[in-house]
């Protein structure tokens, strides 16, 4: 179970990227975090494994406060947090297998890492996961020989081989075409179910979020302005997330559209012309 309490990040430039976000993620739920560019989605997710150091607040993973850990303890804690990145962040010149096995680095000695000498069970795990993500027989290809979709699947394999208790995905589909995006989302969903772990996915494509997520977190200007089941994400909620409009203001907006003939809530949402802009 992951819990953030009043998580806040102020960069040295004075920009407040995340301002006091509190939420809990558990079970095997798929949580999509949406919001406009610069809303602090990436910062939030990177604060969880402290790739970015949070300024204030707590991050509790299975009860342990990660923000209080010393460097060494944090390294050990990171083994339980898998992360998938927008630009895949593979080591391009290494093979697929080396990239996947790098997810096990937290468990091997420096000397073993230097000689790429991983325990047989790690190698076996890596082969299994490569098969799961659809990259069987690709283990000796260099990462830079793969397509974007394939690279992201290596990225996912690297995160999953850690056998994490939670998976973080920072815009995993933003560099991919629509087909690959769906494939990646399906893969992530399947992994959450099969391994019974929660996933937090930063995503700016709302339709993808709605299609795959159980729950939506909406971030606007560093603040959590929406937190609820995907079904509750209506037009009003989207306005608040993407335009920062106060609920009252958008209600007024709705009233004007309702005069032009809208009858019930859902229809009115469909009628609103500005929806196409989302």
């Amino acid at each position, binding site marked *: 179970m992951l819990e953030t309490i009043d998580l806040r990040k102020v960069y040295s430039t004075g920009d407040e990227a995340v301002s006091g976000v509190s939420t809990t993620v558990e079970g095997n739920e798929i949580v999509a975090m949406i919001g406009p560019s610069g809303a602090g989605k990436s910062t939030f997710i990177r604060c969880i*494994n402290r*790739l970015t150091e949070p300024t204030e607040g707590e991050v509790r993973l299975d009860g342990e406060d990660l923000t209080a850990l010393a460097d060494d303890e944090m*390294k*050990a*804690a*990171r*083994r339980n*947090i*898998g*992360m998938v*990145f927008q*630009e895949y*962040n*593979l*080591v*391009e*010149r*290494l093979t697929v297998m*080396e990239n996947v096995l*790098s*997810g*096990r*680095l*937290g468990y091997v000695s*420096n000397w073993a*890492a*230097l000689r790429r000498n991983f325990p047989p069970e790690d190698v076996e795990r890596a082969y299994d996961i490569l098969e799961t993500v659809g990259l069987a027989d690709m283990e000796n290809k260099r990462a830079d020989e793969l397509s974007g979709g394939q690279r992201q699947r290596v*990225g996912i394999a*690297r*995160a999953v081989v*850690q056998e994490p208790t939670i998976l973080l995905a920072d815009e995993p589909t933003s560099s991919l075409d629509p087909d690959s995006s769906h494939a990646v989302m399906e893969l992530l969903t399947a992994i959450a179910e099969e391994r019974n772990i929660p996933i937090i996915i930063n995503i700016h494509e709302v339709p993808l979020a709605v299609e795959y997520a159980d729950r939506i977190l909406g971030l606007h200007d560093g603040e959590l302005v929406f937190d609820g089941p995907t079904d509750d994400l209506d037009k009003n909620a989207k306005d608040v997330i993407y335009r920062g409009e106060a609920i009252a203001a958008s209600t007024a907006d709705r009233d004007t559209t309702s005069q032009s003939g809208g009858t019930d809530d859902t229809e009115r949402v469909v009628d609103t012309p500005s929806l196409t802009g989302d």
Partner: protein
Amino acid sequence: MATQDGASEVTTGNGDWQRPTAFRSQRLKWGVYGGATLFVLWSIVSLLSGVTLPRVLIGVQNGVLLVESMVPPDTSSANLERVSRYMVETIAMAFVATFTGVLISVPVAVGAAENLAPKPLYYLNRGIISITRSIDELIIAIIAVKAVGVGPLAGIIAISYLTIGFFSKLFAEDIEDIDMGAKSAIEASGASRFQTFVYAVIPQVAPRFIGLTVYRWDINIRSSTIIGIVGAGGIGTLLMRSFDRYEYDFAGTILVAIIVVVLAGELFSAYVRRRVQ
């Protein structure tokens, strides 16, 4: 309406645009250009004022005589044997100096890479690089000869020293260019600092490391041919001696040998660098 008619007309009177200059103002720009031109003219006049046409002609004549006396080069077997012996020493000096220089350079380069080193360490190593780069190789060679005596050891010290400034600076820049995303991905998996270096940094800079090493080796071959003229070993020693004894045909042989070896080194280095990059 006026706005419709005026759409294609200039209405604001803001038609003069100039590309912004790097020197804050146009006046300053022309001032700098003018000053630089005057300085070059003054340098030419003051340095070449004593040079007259007859003096240039005599100089050219002497040059031709010198070259003529080098041709044909001396090919006596005793001298050829001396050339090859000193050439082997020259090449060996370049190899050893490249090895020791690169060995010392690696930690300096890592320390001088802004993305890896903490600030104090970064400034320290940048300082080391700047200082090693500020003194020319012949001066270092003279100091080394004074310190350890005439011979190849002085040459190896001087060339290693010069390798550090060059190699650390360029290699540090290559380390700064790595994809930090891959590094943070490795860190995110719980890898130690050393493991991150081995897994995320080394694979990204390895080709440049090989390329730079071979490039520096090629420069070091050239350096070790000249460094002998101050007594620091290698074929330069022999070249200096032949000039002192007016054995210009022997000097010719040595020059040909240097050209052959330096060109071969350059070709090899270019080939290797093309393959690894």
